[in-house]
Every structure is written in structure tokens, then in C-alpha cells.
């Protein structure tokens, strides 16, 4: 018994948290990330890795359904927390910690899970047996009968997963096309964004973007400076440079520490941390080599797609631009909202890693569900 308890306590001290951001609540999300890291917890990258699911903000109905699907995939012991206000964070995290230690609940949990899914005949073994089979993985081809692939004969679908269909890839070789849904719950991903992609191997051959919104609009938005630094964190993390991303996160969180709600208008002059980060990013040849030429956008493209004006150039230009302009005060009134449809075009034809890097580098602060849905963007 003693050993079990020690194990449980140690486990709860090192919990991994999957943070879900509802569009418009990025300030709360960043505050949450900071609080999580300060506890000595870690941020999870996928549902399989997470012990705690923390939802920042009130999700709208479709986003809520997606979050529920993710919740089904947490292996357990698992705790779900919904937060609406920064002031509730300490209590919420303490509650999550206590929840992780509640052994009785976690023993009952898998049974409830199977019952809910009409999975009779499962006695819910004590441990080590989480058949959350039904939910599958939402990262996986969308087998939720969406409109992406009609006309499949279901006889050819082992386990309810339709077999992939063929299509020419960019080398002119016919290969299977996989319909994969990216988002809305992914690390370093624009909040609420869902990208319905056609994947060949890991190359996006087609994409359609949509936005899953919040329940109501009066969100807890971050100030432009923090938001810009948050994008730097994302780009660095997606470029596989954890250390620099970690430091960028520190710079991002620095002014707000100890302050419940940072004011938007005034920020301190370039902090030494920021200057160091700039130097480090500029000096890394490998980073330049890795990002140069990725997702180039001409001024025409930018105007045509309705992206912010400074989105021209390649991914590396955008990152440097971002770092340099962190302390520039944003134009009052904020930016014009980016139509969600515009996001599919720059990423089609890229591989997954490149597409993620390009998306993370774009300023999607004001993402708006587009009025007129356009046909799927496709490029050889």
C-alpha cells in the first residue's frame, strides 16, 4: 500500500497537462501554461501523454464535442478542468492534483467509460487496460462520416475505417490519399482551427480550413506583445528547438509574473532576455537553413488571401520580423480579421512539418470564420 501511495504522489507531482485554448482566450491559456510549469508539471503534446485536460474558456458546441473526443482518449488516471478566469487557476490546479490522487475514482473511471460507449462485458480491470478503442484517435483519418469522403463502400472498411483512395502525388505517382483532420487540439496550433487535409505520405495535397468558435466572445485575450512572443515560442518549438522555445516562453511570461492582468498599452523596453533571444535566433545558422524558403508568400499572395501585410517573405523572414517588432506598439483598433479560408492556400503542397511551421509563423490573432466557403484548394 505504501509503495502505491508513494508512486501516486510522485506521479501527481509530475503530471502532464494538455491545455486546450478556446478562440479568444489566449491570455488565459498562456497564464495557465505558466502556472502549470511553475508547479513543476509539464505540458502534454497529445492526449495519450496527458493526465489532466485543461480547457481555457467556454467552448462552443462543436469545439466542446471535439474536446470531449479528446477527453475520451486520455489514458487515465485523468482529470478534466475547465477554467474561465485566471484567478481560479491556483485552485483549479490544486483541485486537479487532488483529483489525480483519488484512486477510487480512477478505478471506477474506465468502467464508466466503457458503459458510456456500450461496450458491455468489460469488467474494467484495475489497471493497465484502457481500451478506449471506440474514440480511436482524432488525429487519425476522420472516420466520423464527415463530408470529406462520400461514396465509400463500407464493405471495404475494416473496423469502420474506410480504405484510402488513390490520387496522383506531386511526383506523378499514384498514391493513397488519407483524409486527416488536424486540430483543433494540437500543441502550438491556432486555437479552434480545424484543417481538413488530404495527406499523401506526409504531404498535404488538399486542405480546407474551418474555425470552431467559443460559446461567447468576451474572451481573455493577450496583449499584442505577448501574442507575438507566443508565436515565436510556437515557431521555435515546431522547428524542434526546445531550448530556445523554452527561453522564448520565459521572455513571454516575464512581464506578467506576479501581476494578475498586465496592461496592454505600456510595456517595458526590450528586456535583456528578449535581446538575448534575438541574438540567439539570429546566430543560429541551422535555424536559418531550416526555415529559409519555407512557404514563400509574395506581396500579391498576401493581399489576395487577406493576410496581414507583414506576412510576406518566407518563414524565416516572418520569424525575424516577429522578433524585431515585438516592442512596436500595435496599431490601435487591432488588425483586420484574417479569413479562415486563407489558411489552406499557403500550406497545400507542403509537408506536414513545413505546413505547421508556416501556419505558426502567420499572425492569426483575429481569425474569423469566413463568410463565403470556397472550394477546396488543391495544388498538384
Amino acid at each position: 500500500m505504501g509503495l502505491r501511495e508513494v508512486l501516486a504522489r510522485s506521479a501527481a507531482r509530475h503530471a502532464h497537462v494538455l491545455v486546450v485554448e478556446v478562440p479568444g482566450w489566449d491570455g488565459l491559456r498562456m497564464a495557465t501554461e505558466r502556472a502549470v510549469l511553475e508547479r513543476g508539471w509539464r505540458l502534454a503534446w497529445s492526449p495519450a501523454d496527458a493526465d489532466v485536460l485543461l480547457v481555457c474558456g467556454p467552448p462552443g458546441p462543436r469545439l466542446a464535442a471535439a474536446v470531449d473526443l479528446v477527453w475520451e482518449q486520455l489514458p487515465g488516471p485523468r482529470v478534466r478542468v475547465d477554467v474561465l478566469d485566471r484567478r481560479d487557476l491556483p485552485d483549479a490546479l490544486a483541485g486537479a492534483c487532488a483529483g489525480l490522487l483519488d484512486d477510487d475514482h480512477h478505478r471506477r473511471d474506465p468502467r464508466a467509460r466503457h458503459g458510456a460507449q456500450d461496450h458491455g462485458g468489460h469488467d474494467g480491470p484495475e489497471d493497465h487496460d484502457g481500451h478506449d478503442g471506440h474514440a480511436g484517435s482524432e488525429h487519425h483519418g476522420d472516420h466520423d462520416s464527415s463530408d470529406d469522403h462520400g461514396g465509400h463502400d463500407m464493405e471495404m472498411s475494416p473496423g469502420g475505417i474506410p480504405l484510402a483512395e488513390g490520387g496522383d502525388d506531386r511526383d506523378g505517382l499514384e498514391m493513397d490519399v488519407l483524409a486527416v483532420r488536424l486540430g483543433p487540439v494540437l500543441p502550438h496550433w491556432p486555437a479552434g482551427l480545424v484543417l481538413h487535409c488530404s495527406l499523401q505520405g506526409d504531404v498535404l495535397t488538399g486542405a480546407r480550413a474551418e474555425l470552431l468558435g467559443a460559446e461567447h466572445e468576451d474572451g481573455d485575450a493577450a496583449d499584442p506583445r505577448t501574442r507575438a512572443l507566443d508565436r515565436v515560442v510556437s515557431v521555435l518549438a515546431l522547428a524542434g528547438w526546445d531550448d530556445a522555445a523554452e527561453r522564448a516562453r520565459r521572455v513571454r511570461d516575464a512581464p506578467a509574473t506576479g501581476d494578475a492582468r498586465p496592461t496592454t498599452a505600456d510595456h517595458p523596453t526590450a528586456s535583456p532576455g528578449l535581446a538575448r533571444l534575438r541574438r540567439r535566433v539570429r546566430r543560429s545558422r541551422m535555424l536559418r537553413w531550416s526555415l529559409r524558403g519555407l512557404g514563400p508568400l509574395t506581396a500579391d499572395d498576401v493581399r489576395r488571401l487577406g493576410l496581414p501585410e507583414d506576412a510576406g517573405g518566407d518563414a524565416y523572414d516572418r520569424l525575424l520580423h516577429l522578433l524585431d517588432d515585438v516592442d512596436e506598439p500595435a496599431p490601435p483598433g487591432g488588425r483586420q480579421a484574417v479569413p479562415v479560408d486563407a489558411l489552406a492556400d499557403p500550406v497545400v503542397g507542403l509537408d506536414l512539418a513545413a505546413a505547421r511551421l508556416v501556419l505558426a509563423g502567420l499572425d492569426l490573432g483575429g481569425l474569423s470564420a469566413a463568410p463565403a466557403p470556397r472550394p477546396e484548394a488543391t495544388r498538384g
Partner: protein
Amino acid sequence: MLVDIAFVALGVVAVLSGAAVFVVDSMARATYALAVSFVAVGVQVLFLQQSYVGVVVILMMVMEMAVMAVYMVMFMGMNPALMPMSMVHSNRTAVATAVLTFLLLAAGILVVDWPARRGSPPPEVTEALGEALMGPQMLVMAVISPVMVATIVAGVVLAAPRTRYDRFGDDLRQRPPDDPQPGGVGR
């Protein structure tokens, strides 16, 4: 004795996993069954004291099967969902031929009066192999090398659809080349 049992057991593994290649439904399983067969034979070769050849068989075959698995998935597009489907033709003939071949070979193996062992193994088997390749048998490697080069070139020519005119333009002057996926050196 222990060595004998291990040798025969490895043989059984090699045969069974070889048969599994044509039995299982999943492409990945088929490919890696073949890999297991090769590893078993490689270890058997180790038992037969040709350590270099044995390890090289393991090394090359595992690598080859890792690549082969990708081709299998690419061309046959099966997810690990074990989808039963039959992809055989003239099954009867094939079985008959295989059984007949085995009986013939087995009869031959058992009937032939194998000669006694001539000579003794060199003290350093690997070194002997190297010296043979670099000495009396050099012609073999000298022949194999150009054949390999030719194969590489021929393989690329057969498989690649794009020529240098596609990459560099009609006058071969376009820099950087027009590739669907730019490389890391920036040629």
C-alpha cells in the same frame, strides 16, 4: 547438443516465418516476417562460423526490409487493419511445384553421399575472406562493382520521371533547379 537444438530451432523459425510472409494479411507483418526469416538464417550462418557474412546478412536484410515495408504500404495501401484478401493466382500449380521441389531436393540431399571435409577453416575467417577478395578472387569484386553502379543508375533512370530538362529548364541554365521538394544543400 545445445548448439544442435538451437540450430534446428532457428531453421524452423526461418521456414515458418518465411511461410508466414504469404499467409498474413498485413503488409507490414509480411515484410517483417521475411526480415525474421533472414535474421534467423543470419544467426545460423554465425553458427557456421562465418561471422562476417552472418552479421552482414542480418544488417542488410533488416535495412532492406525496413525500406521494403514502405514500398509495400505504398503500392498496396493496406492499413494495419487486418483486411483479409487473397492476392494469388494459380495457387494449385504453385503449391504442387513447391512441394515437388522440396521432395526432390530433400531426396537429393539424403541420397547423395556427401564427401568428407576437405581442408580446415582458416584461423581468422573474416580476414581470409578479405584477403581472398583482395587477392585471388579480386576479379569477382571488380566485376560486381561496375554492375552495382550500373544498377544504381538504371534504377534511378527507370524510377524517376523527371529529367534534367525538367529540373534546369530547356537550356539547362535555370538555377536553383525547379524541384517539388528543394534539397538541403541548395544546388
